[in-house]
């Protein structure tokens, strides 16, 4: 049973790990392969700051809220172990700021210690009159992706550095199931007008005195179009750009100025922070995550694709819940192909 995962960002690697963990014992012939044209540190996941935080509203998409919750709890469970440092996982508290009162988010009971900001705390942020404080998690791609890669390599999963041009290409080589975790470039494999880039641009600085994340919100301009400061283990990420439909992966001077000026207004001491790098990336935005099976007829064979893409700016936040859902879909494929022992029936 050959399974090919397309994509080596957080979605591809975690889906691969989840499937291997759950099924390698049950399916002795399971061979897992990862295909990607970009590996860490060049994936979209590597550019993300790594803060676990869903968007403000789930738009009634309870499925996604559940996947977010599963991810948070999975990560929190790793916090007691010494592996957390290697994973790039750590607790962090911080602020979400608004210019007007807003309803509590779907994730208020998932994070730790969620509460409203006190008047004294709001004094720190002139121009903002309402906000939240909570403790969440950071999962840095620069550490997490190598950690996932190591786990997969230890399990005998093979990696191939190549751009897959079509699902066909893999099926004709004898692959039985394809996991499509191609993120932004899923449209190259199968057109999907719902998948659009949500371009972001960030500045990485040295500001080790900043211990909290600060996310501001401008409800009129939409998510991530308002300054944010997210301290990592080495660098602090300054951001605040979300341009729907913009495919450019090049940094823009105008966006740099917006991010720099607005973050320095938020935290005056940032003026003294040393700029270390600049990056821009494309969030694979979609109205909802595409996580579903698709059967493709190839002659007299039925090939299976499991799509797992379109995680926008919350890939890290939702990844493990999606990986487990993808694994369940894989399980149902195995049952149909009678690769899995049938569940025990009634004893006669």
């Amino acid at each position: 049973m050959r399974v090919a995962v397309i994509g080596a960002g957080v979605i591809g690697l975690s889906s691969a790990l989840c499937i291997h963990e759950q099924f390698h014992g049950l399916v002795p012939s399971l061979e897992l392969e990862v295909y990607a044209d970009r590996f860490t540190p060049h994936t979209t996941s590597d550019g993300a700051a790594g803060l676990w935080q869903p968007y403000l509203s789930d738009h009634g998409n309870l499925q996604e809220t559940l996947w977010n919750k599963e991810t948070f709890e999975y990560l929190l469970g790793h916090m007691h172990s010494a592996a957390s440092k290697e994973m790039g996982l750590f607790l962090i508290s911080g602020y979400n700021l608004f210019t007007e009162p807003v309803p509590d988010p779907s994730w208020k009971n998932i994070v730790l210690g969620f509460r409203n900001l006190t008047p004294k705390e709001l004094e720190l942020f002139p121009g903002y009159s309402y906000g939240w404080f909570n403790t969440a998690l950071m999962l840095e791609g620069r550490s997490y992706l190598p950690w996932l890669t190591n786990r997969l390599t230890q399990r005998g999963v093979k990696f191939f550095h190549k751009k897959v041009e079509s699902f066909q290409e893999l099926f004709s080589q004898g692959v039985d199931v394809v996991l499509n975790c191609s993120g932004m470039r899923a449209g190259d494999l199968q057109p999907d007008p719902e998948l659009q880039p949500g371009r972001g641009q960030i500045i990485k600085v040295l500001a080790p005195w900043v211990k909290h994340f600060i996310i501001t919100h401008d409800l009129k301009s939409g998510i991530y179009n308002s300054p944010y400061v997210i301290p990592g283990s080495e660098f602090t990420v300054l951001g605040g750009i979300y341009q729907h439909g913009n495919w450019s992966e090049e940094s823009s001077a105008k966006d740099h100025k917006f991010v720099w000026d607005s973050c320095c207004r938020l935290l005056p001491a940032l003026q003294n922070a040393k700029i270390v790098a600049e990056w821009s990336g494309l969030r694979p935005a979609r109205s909802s995550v595409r996580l579903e099976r698709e059967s493709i007829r190839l002659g007299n064979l039925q090939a299976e694709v499991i799509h797992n893409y379109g995680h926008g700016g919350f890939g890290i936040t939702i990844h493990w819940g999606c990986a487990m859902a993808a694994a369940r879909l894989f399980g149902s494929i195995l049952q149909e192909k009678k690769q899995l022992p049938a569940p025990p029936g009634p004893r006669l």
Partner: protein
Amino acid sequence: MASPKVAVVGAGVIGLSTALCITETCPSCSVTVLSDQFSPNTTSDVAAGMLIPHTYPDTAIHRQKQWFKETFTYLFAISNSAEASEAGVHLVSGWQVFKSTPKEEFPFWSDIVLGFRAMSEAELLKFPQHRFGQAFTTLKCDCPPYLLWLEKRLKATGTQMYPRKVADLWELHSEYDIVVNCTGMGAHQLVGDKQLSPVRGQVLKVHAPWVKQFIRDGDGLTYIYPGIHWVTLGGTREKGSWSLCPDAGTTRDIFDRCCSLEPSLQGAQDIEVKVGLRPARQCVRVQREVLSQGGVKLLVVHNYGHGAGGFSVHRGTANEAAHLVRECISALQDSSSRAKL
């Protein structure tokens, strides 16, 4: 008296902040700081500089609260300004956890720090040996940056600073009108204060930049305080011990206790061990005194004995000491104008 000459003895957080308050309260004074140690070799440099007050048994609570409030307000403004990184002042959030529920769930300072509340059940799951906890956000003054920043502010006012070991306050009476005693543990020798005794603290400074939250055991013995460039792991409270030598067994013990609160510290690098003697006293001595010797008077203002709580109350006690200095100046001006009659 045109320009009273004030000598501040001691250049830790108390000496420097007191000198600065004096320049602000008594602009006509000329202030000189004298100390045998300057940053990075003061007791203050060993401390993490966390604003979590120590309770002094013999100081009225309202006075301790006032000191803490003034200090917190002062540092809060700095943390929010462009100078925050240079001054080493930053906000930090975290938890104080207790193995058994404390008598006081809301200490006197709980309405001064930010967002103080009891920890939720979910948060306590991270600490299986602890049954109760408090979550809040407070400030931290990293040293050396904070002391160096105070020195820079002082130099800008024209204050001179000299390395000098003062063995006897009377050495200073001919050059200075008022002496301010901020010698911390040094007061034991300098003014013979036997109520002052060392409480030895050993700490580890480690590189663990992924630790963004403080964790403190309510017993005050185990704590993890993330600073700008390193995390301070503590500690010990050894009453009456004068030893400034790091102890290897203690290092191991501190590291183990901190790792049990925060397992990821196993991966911490570059461990540096430091020792400081907290200048402990039942009450902080912020007091005027007139010393007499053979008909000569020496005006002294004391500001020492802050024990484990120096950073938490430094600005408040510095303000009080500066007011006492102003009272001394008034007294000197009165007696000098009387002398003219």
